């Protein structure tokens, strides 16, 4: 097999919630192996357990984070391939200095837009990505943008209300 012999000394660096993190590639217990997913690294190496893993197959969206502003399933990304990427997790929303939460998070609280709350971080990250790109979505656009997020308690209707409440008016239908 052909491989690069110095891989075990390589490092990768990514930005998570505005901070740079470097990881040594390797098999050691605190290193990152090429097979580690971004979800695994966020949870097990950085302790950012707000990102949930449910299906681990890219179907449920519980592990949704933003990569360079776009919603992605962190269970389907290899950490080693996220070199140089800007990752935002649920812990990175809001203002890290003042601790103020994002208006979208506030709206989820106000609308009780969750039940068990396990899928909520992923849903918020998907909705946030939509609002960043399209601050005035229609209700149907919100539905479409959340089509990859599982919610088994069926909090969908409250979620839609919560997202629409912070959507800029104009697109509201």
């Amino acid at each position, binding site marked *: *097999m*052909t*491989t*690069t012999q110095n*891989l075990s000394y390589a490092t990768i660096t990514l930005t998570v919630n505005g901070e740079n993190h470097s990881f040594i590639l390797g*098999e050691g217990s605190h290193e990152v*192996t*090429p*097979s*580690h*997913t971004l979800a695994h690294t966020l949870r097990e190496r950085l302790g950012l357990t707000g990102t949930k893993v449910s299906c*681990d*197959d*890219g*179907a449920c*969206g519980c592990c*949704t984070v933003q*990569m360079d502003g*776009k*919603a*992605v*399933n962190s*269970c*389907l*990304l*290899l950490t*080693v*391939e996220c*070199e140089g990427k800007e990752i935002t997790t649920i812990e990175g929303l809001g203002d890290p200095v003042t601790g103020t939460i994002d208006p979208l998070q506030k709206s989820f609280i106000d609308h009780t837009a969750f039940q068990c709350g396990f899928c909520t971080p992923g849903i918020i990250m*998907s909705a946030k*990505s939509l609002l960043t790109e399209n601050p005035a979505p229609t209700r149907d656009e919100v539905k*479409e*943008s959340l*089509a*990859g*997020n599982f919610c088994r308690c069926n909090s969908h209707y409250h979620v839609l209300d919560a997202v629409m409440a912070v959507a800029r008016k104009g697109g509201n239908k």
Partner: protein
Amino acid sequence: MKTFAHVNAGSVDEVTNLLAQNQGKAKINAGGTDLLGVLKHRILPEYPEMLINIKKITGLNIIEADEEWIRIGALTTLVEIVKSPLIEKTCSLLKEAARSVASPQIRNIATIGGNLCQDTRCWYYRYPDEIGGMIKCFRKGGKTCPAVAGENQYHAIMGAKKCFAVCPSDMAVALTALGAVCTLAGVKGVRTIAVEELYTPLGNVLSPDEMITAIHIPKPAPDAKQTFFKFTLRKPIDFAIVSAASIITIDKGICTDVRIVLGAVAPTPVRALKAEEFLKGKALSEEIADQAALLAMDGAKPLAKNAYKLEIAKTLVKRVVKDSVVTVNSLNDPV
């Protein structure tokens, strides 16, 4: 997930060389939305020893056009296709097909090349190793296809012999309808092949050292009506139970040119050639559409649990034909 060596390839040459040197033991990773599932569930008899990341290769995620062709780089993501004004203007059916894939998160990272090369979704083939071991079927070098006498509700109704898995790619169906060709790069050089010819009953024609680098679509006639319908139990997430793509040109009420392609009915996308032949030169009507639908099913032999797919396929053919004669968007939610 069991680990593997990992290489970030900087060029297509590097990829093809690595593929050749590793003799089938290296796999290309683009979006990874299909491959990671394959690896996590250990569905293949052999686990790859190396993954080659091709996302860092420059120049492979472009959408551009000249007078005759539209060129899409293999690393172009599905979301880029959905949002491309050029694609919307020239190949609306490709846009619709891309939009129908999986979920927003997947479309943000999945690539058109990866969509074409994804492995089948047959649930025997993809049975997870962690629950009693993967299933060795005909496609994996086994002797039988367990779907034939099993749970074959999503399997092939035509064109299959020893493996009844269907080609899951929506892009393949759309691109076949558009008459697209793709560029394959290998250690011996570059070749082009029609997307229609890309698939074999057990996979695709790529040799172990080859990768898709680009897709070329001949510019469709501006007045041709393009349609892509995908029948699923759910609009998002699901792979097609049956899909149909069509591009139909009508001149003074008469069908002058037509391509109709069915997806998820066979191991490859299937051109409804008899239906196309029948439609050419005809004034399209409900009755003509019905007859074309019957012709499209020529040669179909469903298994015990998937005869319903034939009925759905007929309906989709009928509806793409009907849709091409009625005003645009009059069928809001045809599937």
